[in-house]
């Protein structure tokens, strides 16, 4: 399996998803620039899809921002901007520190190109053996989600999803959702607890996600 180990993902990304109570119309690129969280020229060249009381959605060349009333999401597909993604979330809710946030996902996604269709099928069979699916003709793995408990002291779970990639063929898509919850989800007190978790857990979370993905790829 050395070939897979040495393989880098064809496409990868990271996102931070926050669950809480948000006011989407605040999240305009100009607001981020005025707060010093993104550059002025970045804000001016932002591709704004919509900024509305119920929804804000815009793109920079390295970032996608989508906010609705109960969800705030930042996404990048540029590995060079993983840390700026974290900083943007931290900076935003340092300024909006009274925003109640009750949960967070640090999500890591990767698409890997397989060397052949045989290798691709073999991986699917390994993850979901077909012996139990005799009632189906030509059963194939479309989506597999596995959840594990956290090994740290935080509340939440780790969820891993595997699917055939729709980006590269033959390829495999992995998504790791590292989900954190505040201790008292019924009365989150501002953003402090989650932002603290984000800063504290960021590096470990990304490393763990990569380890999980590579361990699945390399498992024989």
């Amino acid at each position, binding site marked *: 399996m050395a070939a897979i180990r040495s393989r*880098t993902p064809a*496409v*990868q*990304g*990271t*996102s931070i*998803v*926050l*669950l809480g109570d948000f006011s989407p119309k605040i999240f305009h690129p100009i607001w981020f620039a005025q*707060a*010093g*969280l*993104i*550059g*002025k*020229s*970045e804000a001016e060249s932002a*591709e704004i*899809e*919509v900024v*509305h009381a*119920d*929804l804000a*959605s815009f793109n920079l*060349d*390295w970032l*996608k921002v*989508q906010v*609705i*009333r109960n*969800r705030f*999401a930042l*996404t990048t*597909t*540029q*590995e*060079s*901007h993983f*840390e*700026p993604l974290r*900083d*943007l979330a931290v*900076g935003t809710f*340092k300024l909006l520190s009274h925003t109640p946030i009750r949960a967070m*996902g640090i*999500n890591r*996604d990767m*698409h890997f190109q397989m060397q052949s269709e045989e290798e691709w099928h073999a991986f699917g069979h390994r993850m979901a053996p077909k012996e139990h699916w005799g009632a189906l003709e030509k059963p194939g793995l479309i*989506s597999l*989600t596995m959840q594990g408990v956290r090994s740290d002291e935080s509340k939440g779970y780790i*969820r891993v*999803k595997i*699917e055939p*990639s*729709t*980006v590269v063929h033959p390829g495999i898509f992995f*998504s790791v*959702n590292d*989900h*954190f919850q505040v201790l008292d989800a019924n009365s989150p007190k501002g953003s402090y607890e989650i932002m603290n978790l984000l800063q504290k857990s960021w590096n470990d979370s990304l490393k763990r996600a990569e380890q999980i993905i590579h361990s699945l790829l390399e498992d024989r």
Partner: protein
Amino acid sequence: MNALLLQRSDTFYIDPQPKSEGPQQNEPLYYKGEIKTDFFQPDDESGLKSEEEENTVHSQFRVPRPSVLLLLKITPSKQNHFISLQKWEGIVFKVKKEVFLAKLVDLTQEGPDEEAEIPIEEVSEDDLDLLQPGAVFYWNIGYLNSHRGQRLRTSGIRFRRLPAWTEEELHKARSEAMRIRDLMGWK
């Protein structure tokens, strides 16, 4: 996030009339799948929609208290993809006329800290105001795969942007520094 990779253009709706009272399998309930936008979906999940789900959506978007109907043309995001070959976090300790000096911490693999002299012209105009002793930046060398299919080997510096420290935070930091100093017995 995968939705960023979809090569299509969609229309989405903020629909004033939800069609039903409960979740329905296979019914498109969200746009692009990057954020779970509808009120039928469990709102306690912080993951992203799966590729399969994303690719079967019809991009309908509902919000809990809709008051308007909007039809908006959304074009696919054109994010480039960057894969880092080498990644450092740097701290500026001296700024000269044409270069700045920085301590570099390797984020790619563990190793000793390094020092580097970096030309100021490497810093983007947006970030020039941030260039001062103590500033933190990220330096990446890697491949930029453009959404047009080109691959470029590039090097980029981006300075950390965080809101200024508040008086309260500075006070806490000073108190903590004094506590550590006392603990170590330093005078």
